[in-house]
């Protein structure tokens, strides 16, 4: 982890409200693993004291990129970042996805910008499997080409049916899981809380391992402020707060204690 002043190389719209920001960031890119994130100081966001966390989307050849969606004050201000600007970021942060036990035929499950760390993951492992990408509408389905070019099978769902199957990503996942007959594929998921929870519950019920990357509001990003905590069950069954930034953002679905 370090503070890196990265120069913006490319900043472009990829689809809908999503943009990719490509930075020269040799130190951070060199150390990055899938599922880790950077804590970015939005330039010219005067009066703002908090950085914004973004999953690492690509890290290759001293370049690092993130994929972001404009949703609020900070991300809207990011739209005006220009090529050549300097962006101050801390990274790589967090634990990332454990890749050792990935096994055969893993399932990646992504909602919205959740594709970003999973696309990174897909390119870093030797196995190939199936990627489930869900979104409200066709404009929320990103990175399909990334996965396909790597040889992953992509299954798309949209809530309005404008692309792929109509419905929730979990419906597609259910069909697929039923096809697995005895195998215990590992799941990797990133997306909104509701999706993560649904994916986790299915996996746990089926006895599969699922690694979920949580999205919590953050302060420091390094484990110091205790803002980003999630209830996690320990081995002795006791429940305690873990820091999503430092102890996560990726947790085993079976230890996450969701709110009632």
């Amino acid at each position, binding site marked *: *982890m*370090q*503070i890196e002043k990265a120069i913006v190389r490319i900043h472009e719209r990829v689809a809908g409200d999503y943009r990719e920001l490509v930075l020269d960031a040799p130190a951070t890119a060199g150390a990055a693993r899938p599922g880790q994130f950077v804590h970015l*100081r939005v330039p010219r966001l005067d*009066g*703002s*004291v*908090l*950085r914004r966390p973004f999953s690492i989307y690509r890290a290759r050849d001293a370049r690092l990129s993130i994929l972001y969606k404009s949703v609020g004050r900070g991300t809207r201000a990011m739209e005006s970042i220009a090529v050549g600007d300097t962006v*101050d970021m*801390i990274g790589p942060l967090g634990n990332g996805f454990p890749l050792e036990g990935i096994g055969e035929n893993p399932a990646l499950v992504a909602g919205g910008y959740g594709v970003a760390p999973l696309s990174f993951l897909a390119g870093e492992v030797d196995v190939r499997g199936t990627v489930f990408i869900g979104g409200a509408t066709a404009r929320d389905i990103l990175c399909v080409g990334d996965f396909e070019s790597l040889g992953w099978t992509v299954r798309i769902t949209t809530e309005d049916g404008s692309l792929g199957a109509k419905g929730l990503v979990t419906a597609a996942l259910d069909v697929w899981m039923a096809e697995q007959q005895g195998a215990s594929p590992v799941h990797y998921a990133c997306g909104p809380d509701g999706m993560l929870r649904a994916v986790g519950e299915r996996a746990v019920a089926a006895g599969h391992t699922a690694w979920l990357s949580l999205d*919590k*509001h953050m*302060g*420091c*990003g*390094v*484990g*110091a*402020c*205790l*803002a*980003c*905590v*999630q209830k996690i069950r320990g081995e002795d069954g006791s429940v*305690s*707060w873990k820091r999503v930034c*430092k102890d996560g953002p990726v947790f085993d679905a079976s230890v996450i204690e969701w709110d009632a």
Partner: protein
Amino acid sequence: MSDQPDMSVDIAGIRMKNPVMVASGTFGYGPEYADLVDITCLGAIVVKGICLDPWEGNDVPRMVEVRGGLINAIGLQGPGVDSFVETYMPFLRQFDTPVIVNIWGRDKDEYEEVAARFNDVEGIAGLELNISCPNVKEGGIAFGTDITMASDLISRVRKRTSLPLIPKLAPNVPQVGLFAKAAEDAGADAVSLINTLPAMVIDIETRRPILANRVGGLSGPAIHPVAVKQVWEAAQAVSIPVIGMGGIETADDALEFIIAGAAAVAVGTATFTDPATAVRVIDGIGAYLQRHDLAGVGELVGSIRE
């Protein structure tokens, strides 16, 4: 003047290389920022609030950004005395940077007990007594806004600790000088202020408070001029050192506190924005002293011209 100005300060017997500390709750217990901040450069580290036993703190959301600052309602989550000492003190003892432990209790007995426990712990330079946390019902701010309670608590804790004792005062009182004086009279070796200002944000769509705890404490640049005023008043009221904090982002912000009467300062929220803040502030104070031909930071403390 060609000599380097003397940046060192002595706060209630705690020798610091320079007057810039990191504020409780914004620097964890030390290791969290160690990759990003050179701990040996800091005047002192104040660790996150500790009570007797492990404490859960509040539910989430615990933090929200507002214009010019943030509101937190962490609720003093912490590992408790023993686990803190075991887990973090070995790390903290590696540096020659004084470690000040921020302590609190759910009642006066617990405050006393926590203070007493640290007497025998090696490597603790002082205790900051948090009587001003807006985020816990049990202890905290109730003590800090009632002068009789505050006095009594401080005297009691004073009897139980041989360490320098630094009550941390609440900002939301009309005459903070009275609290500072009461703390001095009750045996405090220094006082620190300000803690966060009680504040609240409501989500107008759900009509619910954004923080799970409903209210939290405002910190960051938004509170800086309020803090300067409170530090100035406190410094006028006492002869013990005053540690000033609240909204420091730049050396200039810190210098205002020092000129107003603070013998040391602490950087809080700005570390989140830029972990290099404390070091930048240290350098900036040094540069200011040189530029103004001052031999040491002591010459500046309380040098306000009115």
